């Protein structure tokens, strides 16, 4: 038991539980829906998860610092429309420039949030509730109630969602999914190994201590919002590629899904705990349920929202009650282990003392 406990952390058990849950959900729906385990469905869900997951990674960075970003849905919508409009006006823009433009616009919007939260000391919930409305207004005003339509876009972006990196039999591994995997790996590595990543945890678990330790708290929080905005911008580009037709309601509700993915994936809403891998698993679980309910004939698809709300609550409550117990257990067994170590070394040393 102790050896097992040394090897696994409570967070990893949670991730394992999530994997099991995802498999159980898939098995359940496979018995309910015909042709559920088809390559087509896999492709559809993987592309849909890709967008949510990229936003959720950004959301996780912000949540780690004990903040929240409710404006991501509007950022996704605005960048998708803005970039789509530029592309429609000028089909010659290079693909890389388009992606950079999306990330840049998103980062600028994130910076607006970040300045107000970090330097203006306005609570994140207030700032982003405001910008949720503000950015959407910018989109409505900018678009003048027009729609970006697929036929006005250059061919490469229309083909993008069907572009494969490789495929096994009919299971395609799409380019959009590749972007998501790259984002997940980069940001997981950043959180685990880079000083900036570790500082995000430090600020979230104890802002006062982080300040006393001399961390530039304001700058760290500011950049968390910038990164979140940039990732939402990237997701906006992916949104444009996936749907082609962009209206003023694009990205509506993504903010809640991204919060749900982060929280279900184990990010503590009080900051200081969470992983990108967990967030990815959370996004997969939420999106699989969401997409499956649309096709499940037994109950109305209108249950999707209600279930999403309950899932967030359940995840937070489970985190609060179960994870706290587990961490206690671990902390206690660690104490015992270190005590044993101390005793062992003492008994080894004793003969020497006698001599």
């Amino acid at each position: 038991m102790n050896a097992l406990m040394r090897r696994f952390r409570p967070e990893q058990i949670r991730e394992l539980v999530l994997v099991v849950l995802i498999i159980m959900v898939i098995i359940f729906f496979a018995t309910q829906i015909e042709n559920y385990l088809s390559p087509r469905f896999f492709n559809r869900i993987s592309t849909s998860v890709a967008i949510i997951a990229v936003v959720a990674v950004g959301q996780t960075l912000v949540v780690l610092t004990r903040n929240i970003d409710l404006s991501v849905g509007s950022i996704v919508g605005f960048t998708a429309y803005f970039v789509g409009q530029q592309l429609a006006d000028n089909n010659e823009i290079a693909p890389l420039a388009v992606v950079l433009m999306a990330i840049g616009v998103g980062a600028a919007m994130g910076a607006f949030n970040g300045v107000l939260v970090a330097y203006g000391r306005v609570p994140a919930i207030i700032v982003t509730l405001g910008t949720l409305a503000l950015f959407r207004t910018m989109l409505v005003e900018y678009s003048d109630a027009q729609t970006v339509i697929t036929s006005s876009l250059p061919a490469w972006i229309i083909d993008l969602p069907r572009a494969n990196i490789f495929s096994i039999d009919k299971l395609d591994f799409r380019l959009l999914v590749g972007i998501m995997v790259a984002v997940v790996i980069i940001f997981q590595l950043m959180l685990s190994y880079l000083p900036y990543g570790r500082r995000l945890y430090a600020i979230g678990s104890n802002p006062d201590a982080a300040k006393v330790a001399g961390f530039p708290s304001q700058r760290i929080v500011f950049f968390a919002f910038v990164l979140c905005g940039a990732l939402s911008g990237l997701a906006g580009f992916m949104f444009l590629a996936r749907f082609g037709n962009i209206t003023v309601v694009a990205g509506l509700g993504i903010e809640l899904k991204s919060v749900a993915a982060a929280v279900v994936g184990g990010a503590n809403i009080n900051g200081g705990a969470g992983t990108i891998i967990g967030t990815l698993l959370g996004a997969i679980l939420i999106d699989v349920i969401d997409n499956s309910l649309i096709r499940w004939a037994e109950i109305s698809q209108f249950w999707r929202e209600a279930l999403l709300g309950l899932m967030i609550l359940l995840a937070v409550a489970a985190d609060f009650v179960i994870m706290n117990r587990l961490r206690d257990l671990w902390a206690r067994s660690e104490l015992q282990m270190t005590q044993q170590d101390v005793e062992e070394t003492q008994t080894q040393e004793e003969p020497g003392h006698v001599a």
Partner: protein
Amino acid sequence: MSHDKNFLSVVWDKLKSWEGFLLLVLILIIIGNTSLAPNYLSIGNQMNLFILSIEKIIVALIMAFIIINAEIDLSVSSMMGLSACTLAWLYSQGAPIPVALLAGLLIGVLGGAFNAFWIAKVGLPSLVVTLAMLIGFRGFARVLLEDKSIGDFPVWFDTLGQQPLVGPFPLALLLFFLFVIAAILLLEYSGFGRYVYVIGNSREVAEYSGVKVNRVKTILFIASGTVAALAGLLFAARLGAVRGDLALGFELDIITMVLLGGVSIFGGSGSIYGVLLSIMIVLNLRNGMSLANITGHVQTGVIGMLLILSVLVPNMTQTVRAYLDRRRLAEASSKNNEQLSVNN
């Protein structure tokens, strides 16, 4: 307040406060609006303003309690939708309206108690619980009505929502007056109101002084759910038809009204008078923008901006004031040092 201060200086002190600033803003907005539409300031038009947003401002009153208590309830607009949908669904299933109304209110009590359980009993942050229920309650509302719209309520029900009941006042406005009086009495003059402030200032201090923190929070969240449900029912009666997206996004206006009214988002301070002034500001501002042909979307954006500013401006003035105080202290101490060195 000392006795030697004359009346004018007392008034001047009041005007220098946040409420005074709000009053100034309100007067400016009204002057602007009057120049756009000459008979703007008529009592009829002002009352119309209130009636058109009566549901939001009723909920804003209870939201003030919650935020002074250093919590937040993001689920109110979804609860408004859920209670209205419960009413409409039961009615469409053949239940008489009074039964459906009671059921709608009951849903509000239960929903509020559900929030309160997780917040006060389990100890989860209200931000997450009510964010989850912002989605959850709305989801249940959609489950009930799917994509249908249910109307054709009995005539007396529509009349109750749309026509004046006593004199020129419809039921909702009368209820609002009642709630305002109750809110002022509760918050300013009762022991319960003191508890609300104390807990908002410091939960620990309140606990150590024997305040039953969890009981106060439970009462507040149940009250919030119930008032929101009542507001949803009033909205249904005024509109005469209910859809799943009823009251969608109202939390933005409601929270803006409370925070702009000088209630601190960190809890512990604020007054109903300030909230009343900011309600007037938001209503007049929205109406003025409509007069100036500004679309609803831009109005929402402006309200969003107002929400951020209502917290940012007090923060900034506090920072500037602290900086000035520090400088004054530094100057004073350097003067002292000079004198000391001269004396030596």
